[in-house]
């Protein structure tokens, strides 16, 4: 029981921890991508701002959408949203809950990119260098006598180390803008943390009972989907097994039973005899090369219909059970198997 419990916890936590793991991997990928990406400011007044801010905003959007793509629950959510009501009512709170949890997980990698970009400062430097007031850094005669356009062009060259001559001014400007960028970064992180805190820690104050309900049913939808897939797989396997055995039977023309059971007198089955019997049974009536060739050829040219026959089995069973027992076969009592007169009483008890 302990082992089952442990395994179970691992499986259940596995699904959530799997999603959390994907989240973490994406966050690391985001940080790694930033550090390996070669930031290349164009150093021209017309394009600096677009490039700088674009680098700040577009990759997070991409990561956000990637988070949705990688999350398995998106298809569950979409299916639950679009299905017709049928016999089961739809609960909008469940949809909201699933959407919120998917969104929360997808927001982590973009947040990591934005904060790493802001802490690094390069994108702000690129975007805002043309708005700098150089007099702040000291009395520099660099800008005197220049037209507006020339001033802008010179300021735009600040992010590029090799294009701007005065390293002192450049270092001062770099420090100033990086400082502002880092302050923005920390404020962003603070806002994010406070929002998360408000949502998660304050939630029990308001809607705890409703929350438990939505959590249970959204988890149920996920599990039900998995169970349905599992049951379909099992069914398909059994279907295929029975279909193939019936096909072999049909080709060989023999009424082979794939029951191991024999007449009622054989109570003590010899294991070895059983083994040889089942080997023979496994042959399914195909004992000659011609028969086998026919089986293989027909499997390609003329596959059997997807309909399983039931009467064959009943006929067999009825033939066997003709001792002192008036009764139905183990399995199916049907209107069209009628050699033996049946007399049975069935008493039904219900758990009331």
């Amino acid at each position, binding site marked *: 029981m302990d082992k089952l419990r*442990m395994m*179970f*916890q691992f499986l*259940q936590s596995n699904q959530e921890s799997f999603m959390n793991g994907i989240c973490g991997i994406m966050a690391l990928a985001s940080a790694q991508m930033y550090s390996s990406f070669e930031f290349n400011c164009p150093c021209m007044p017309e394009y600096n701002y677009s490039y700088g801010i674009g680098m700040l905003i577009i990759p997070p959007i991409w990561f956000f959408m990637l988070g949705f793509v990688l999350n398995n629950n998106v298809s569950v959510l979409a299916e639950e949203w679009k299905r017709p009501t*049928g016999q089961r009512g739809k609960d909008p709170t469940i949809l909201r809950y699933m959407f919120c949890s998917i969104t929360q997980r997808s927001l982590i990698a973009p947040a990591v990119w934005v904060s790493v970009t802001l*802490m690094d*400062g390069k994108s702000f430097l690129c975007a805002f260098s043309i708005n700098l007031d150089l007099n702040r850094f*000291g*009395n520099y005669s660099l800008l005197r006598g220049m037209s507006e356009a020339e001033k802008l062009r010179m300021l735009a060259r600040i992010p590029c180390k090799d294009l701007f001559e005065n*390293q002192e001014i450049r*270092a*001062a400007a770099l*420090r*100033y803008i*990086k*400082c502002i960028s880092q*302050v923005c970064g*920390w*404020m962003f992180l*603070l806002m994010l*943390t406070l929002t998360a*805190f408000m949502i*998660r*820690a304050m939630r*029990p*104050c308001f809607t*705890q009972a409703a929350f438990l309900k939505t959590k*249970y049913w959204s*988890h*149920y939808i996920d599990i*039900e989907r998995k169970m*349905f897939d599992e*049951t*379909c797989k099992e*069914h398909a396997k*059994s*279907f295929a097994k*029975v279909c193939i055995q019936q096909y072999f039977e049909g080709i060989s023309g023999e009424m082979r039973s*794939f*029951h*191991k*059971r024999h007449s*009622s007198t054989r109570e003590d089955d010899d294991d070895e005899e059983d083994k040889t019997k089942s080997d023979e049974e496994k042959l399914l009536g195909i004992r000659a090369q011609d028969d086998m060739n026919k089986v293989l050829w027909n499997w390609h040219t003329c596959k059997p*219909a*997807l309909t*399983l026959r*039931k009467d064959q089995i009943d006929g067999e069973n009825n033939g066997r059970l003709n001792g002192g*027992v008036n*009764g*139905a076969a*183990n*399995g*199916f*009592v*049907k209107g069209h198997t009628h050699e033996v007169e049946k007399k049975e*009483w*069935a*008493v*039904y008890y219900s*758990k009331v």
Partner: protein
Amino acid sequence: MERLKLVLQYFQSNSESISNGICIILALVSVKLYTSFDFNCPCLPQYNKLYSLGVMIVPPIILFFLGVLVNRHTGVMMDEWMRPIGNRSKNPAVVKYLFSAMLQRALLAPMVWILVSLLDGKIFVCAFSVSVEPAVFSGMPNNTGLDVIKIMAKVPCKEDDVFRNSSFPKAVSRYVRCYSQAVGWSILLFLIVLGAMGRLIKPCFEDHGAIMQTRYWSNYLDVEQKLFDETCVLHARDFARKCVVQFFEDMREDTVIRLPHPTFITNSREEWEDEEERLHGISKQEQMDQLLNKWYYSKPELNVTRTAYRPRTCVTWEDRDGKTLFSDV
């Protein structure tokens, strides 16, 4: 595998040790964050202090809230505090205990950040270099035309051209760093003494029995919540399986009475029966297609009473004379 199982069981049994582990991980994250953060003093008189104190204070606040968020006990405490009384009376001591435990754990990572930044000294140098009396140190550049405040503000940026070939900034930095480290060590000492005094003196003032009760019941609340979540998951699984099987069986065409084996004929279950059971009566392509279609267009209602409480079929076998051969009753 056995060792892993033991380790997991240890962690599972003691929810406090999980919280301690997370707390320590957060402290390590705090150190790593500090070392990877590129501290960039603006070296301007108006902004130095603001920036430095901001970097010293805002990350600890963020780490504190993070510590509260990742702690499991926060949820347990809030649940216990906000729940209606119902059939179970509320014990304020448990809520207080959980709150203080959560607070202590959440305060570790911020303290680590503050201490590391003080012991490192960069932040103090950036913030307080303008307050240092420059006359104490030799080598201050006086030919740049900048006033004293601006020069002192540039001290944290040693590579600046103002200080070419001068050891002035290094001397000032060392001095301020010295102060910073002294403050850091004092705070650390104070905290440790406080902790030690608390540990030693608290038992004299408190009822040990009541403490043990509070600890037991707060651990109980945590375990109870975990078990409830587990039970819900197990239940959902069973519910789902029954619902799906019921859905399959509702799609059967024939009405089939399934009777249990008369026991004197055979005791063994047949392989064939297993297969038949797994088919749930769906044995044609059209049936299957219809089933799959219906699964999307008309999902079954959430009611498995029929399957869960299926009446058991009891059979009585009689021979021609009316003598009972076998009965399930």
